[in-house]
């Protein structure tokens, strides 16, 4: 039971990360900031779950990473979306929309 819940959350996190990166390359800290901005401060991604998720996504070939420097000149690892990642994002967004629609229909039903 617990496992199913975790999977769902993990899948959602993957989609959020891909979405954040769809606007351009970011380092891990930047991903968290971007998600916070995009959700208008409603979503706060835990650092502890961000990095394992990032590595997993990288292994799947959805993002690629490269060391670079941030705006203050500090060395940081930047992630960018690959073509496969872009496709994955579209697929996940579509399925998420369907889910939201379905849930909304169920809730509206009396």
């Amino acid at each position, binding site marked *: 039971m617990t496992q199913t819940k975790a999977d769902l959350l993990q899948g959602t996190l993957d989609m959020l990360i891909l979405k954040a990166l769809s606007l351009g390359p970011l*380092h*891990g*800290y930047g991903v968290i900031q971007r998600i916070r901005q995009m959700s208008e401060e409603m979503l706060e991604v*835990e*650092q*502890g779950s961000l*990095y*394992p998720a990032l*590595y*997993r996504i*990288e*292994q*799947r*070939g959805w993002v690629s990473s490269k060391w670079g420097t*941030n705006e*203050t000149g*500090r*060395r*940081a*690892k930047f992630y960018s979306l*690959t073509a*496969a990642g872009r496709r994955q994002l579209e697929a996940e967004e579509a399925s998420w929309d369907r889910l939201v629609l379905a849930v909304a229909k169920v809730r509206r039903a009396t």
Partner: protein
Amino acid sequence: MRGFNVLKSRLRALFGRESVLRDIDEELRAHVEMEEAANLARGMTPAEARRAALRSFGNLGSIRDAAYEIRGGGMLETLWQDLRYGVRALAKHRGFAAVAVVTLALGIGANSTIFSFANGVLLRPLPYRQPERLVMLDETAPKRGTLSMGVSFPNFLDWRAQNRVFEEIAAYQPGSYALVGGGEPEQIRGARVSAGLFEVLGVAPVTGRTILSEEDRPGGETVVILGHGLWERRFGADPRVVGRSVSLNNRPHTVVGVMPPGFRFPEVADLWVPLALDTQRWTRTDHGLSAVARLKDGVTLEQAQAEMGAVARRIEEQNPVTNEGMGVTVTDLRAGLVGDYRQSLLILLGVVGFVLLIACVNVANLLLARASTRRKEISIRAALGASRRRIFRQLITESLVLSALGGALGLALAVWGLKLLLASVPVEFPFWMQFGLDGRVVGFTAVVTLLTGALFGAAPALQASKVDLNETLKEGGRSAAAGAGQGRLRSLLVVVEVALSLVLLVGAGLMMRSFLRLQQVDVGLDPRGVLTMGVSLPSAKYPEPEKQSAFFAQLVERLGRLPGVREAGAVSNLPLSGSRWGRSLTVEGRPVVGVGQAPSINHCVVTPGYFRAMGIPLLAGRDLAETDSKDAPKVTVIDERLAREYWPGESALGKRVRFGPPEANEPWHTVVGVVGEVRHERMDAATRMSVYLPYRQIPLRGMTLAARAEGDPLGLAAAAREQVRALDPDQPVTSVRTMEEVISRAVWQPRLHAILFGVFAAVALALATVGIYGVMSYAVTQRTHEIGVRVALGARPRDILRMVVRQGLALTLVGVAVGAAAAFALTRVMASLLFEVSAADPATFAANVVLLTLVSLLACYVPARRATRVDPITALRYE
């Protein structure tokens, strides 16, 4: 793409644990610092900013580990851990490990030994340029049932002129040469070769040149090319040897070249002179040559065969008398050289494969037994969170450690086994058969070792890793937890083991029976006490036939007078020595047939004392005599079979026969005697009928002397050599052997097969016995409680004994049934290796079934006895 990414990061993780961790660390540190900077910007004090950043990050260490795990780190580490753990576990159970390793070493060693032998014969490339393009050409007379015979010189010339499929064809004829000068006179094996031979083989001399085409003509045979070994041995590797004159068969020859090391052709030749044949003297019916050719690029064996078939038909049309029914076969050179060895080697490889399978079954059994004693340990590991996959991997690693040890020991065994095997082959190996542990053998052993480990390790590991935590922990690790699945697996293993062993036992039984039959064959002569020795006179020193026969007359007489010699004689081709002389036979008054159909007979030239010296019985008429001289009427003695074939029911004496091609009009020989049949060419089958001609009427340069001694024939050897030296100090002597040795050499192959099969079957039987014993005694231990209850309820020892034995016997009988069926199907492939024994010989099958059943009964009996001594009190307390 994904696969590549994973692979890249796995590789990085595998080889650079440190760099991966550093990478992760730095990234995480950058994150914390950025957070800290943001906190500072929000107006926190530096200390606060740092604390807040770290706090929001959570447990840095566990994130780091999780990240490391995801990025595929630790594969090598896990393997290393498993290895260390495996070695420790094996070291703790040295007895178990030793039994398993020795069992595997026997199996793997047997395989590596036979493989390294097969490698030398079948796999190592021949030392010629592009050896796969080389073919052998033979003439055939299919109507007469002769599938391969020598090539005649005129036919060879026509082939060479007419074919379009070969770059070049060369002919050769092995011979023996008395090399005189620069040390003891020595008989060297060599060959007369046509000018193109070295070009066909694609090997150039290290110094000097090869044979020119103008030397390959009658009168041109005054040059010689030396083999590298001979050059080193006799001429101290002197580079100025080219141009020097040496004496071969008492004729001067000029050395013109030296071949590179390792080059020999054919078989064991070490010097080469031009073939230089005369078409006037060498007719189309003298099939005395061998031929080798190189296929043109892009020409297949089939195309060459088709082309040569057409060429042969054309020659047949032009020469109907001599070439009627004659064809040509084209064979791959290696296949031609290897001949029948190939099949027996493949069968032997199959046999050792069986031995290895039995070894695997045994070790699998051991592992199963051990797994049940390790249940608690495995359950605890599972309870602590090890996944089934992880446990399986650990167990398989242990198996691989075992098989690696077994493989290493097996390879060492193979070094020794190969030496032993080579030593038991009494014939000189052709030069191209090189044996040793090369990369191919080591690679084969490594692959076999890995497969073995996986094979015997997989089933037990699968079983053992299937841990039901609730069950095991509830039962407190009690032995009954072994479960029905494991019991079934063990029973299956026993059945398989018994079946495999029976196949090997039957195979070995057939081989041994066949060899014993062969030993009992009546060769037609009495070899006990007979010494033989070859003498080949050089034609330059003994040009006149009279001189040749005079030499042998004197030598035979001198030998006969030696103290301890009862009788002496000489023969042109000694029975079972591999030397043959076939000629066509024409019988007076019978229709004359072409050479393709005339029967080929075994043609021997002998001295008068030969039959008595060899113990060949004279059945009718008289022996040949010294009075059957050159000018006396031509006579012959024929063997019993020939007499029966042509004159059944009447006397052959006085009838006339002649030899050679029917159109040649050779003189008639009158039959004056009939002797018993001798197995001249093979022990296992009567081949050609034989005729014997007096040595004074057909003088020869080369004869084999035979002397019957009163005591040990080898005691005569020195005195016999002395007699040759007394007649001609320059005359070498070859192959001094007892006749018994000659015969035993003739059957070395069946004997070696019998020995090898016997050894492997014995190993199989021993392994099977240990295996059955192991399973039964384990089963008894498992049932101690049950047996205790039975005894407490009044079962007598006899009942217990019967119960246990019955269980083992049932398994054995199932195995025997399966094995007998398998043996019946498999022994058929060895039918061609058997002599007068059917591959389905009922006696052999029955004997081995009984043997195996008895042995397994014994293997069951011992544990069963132990079961009867179970003390019910102890057994029940065992709970």
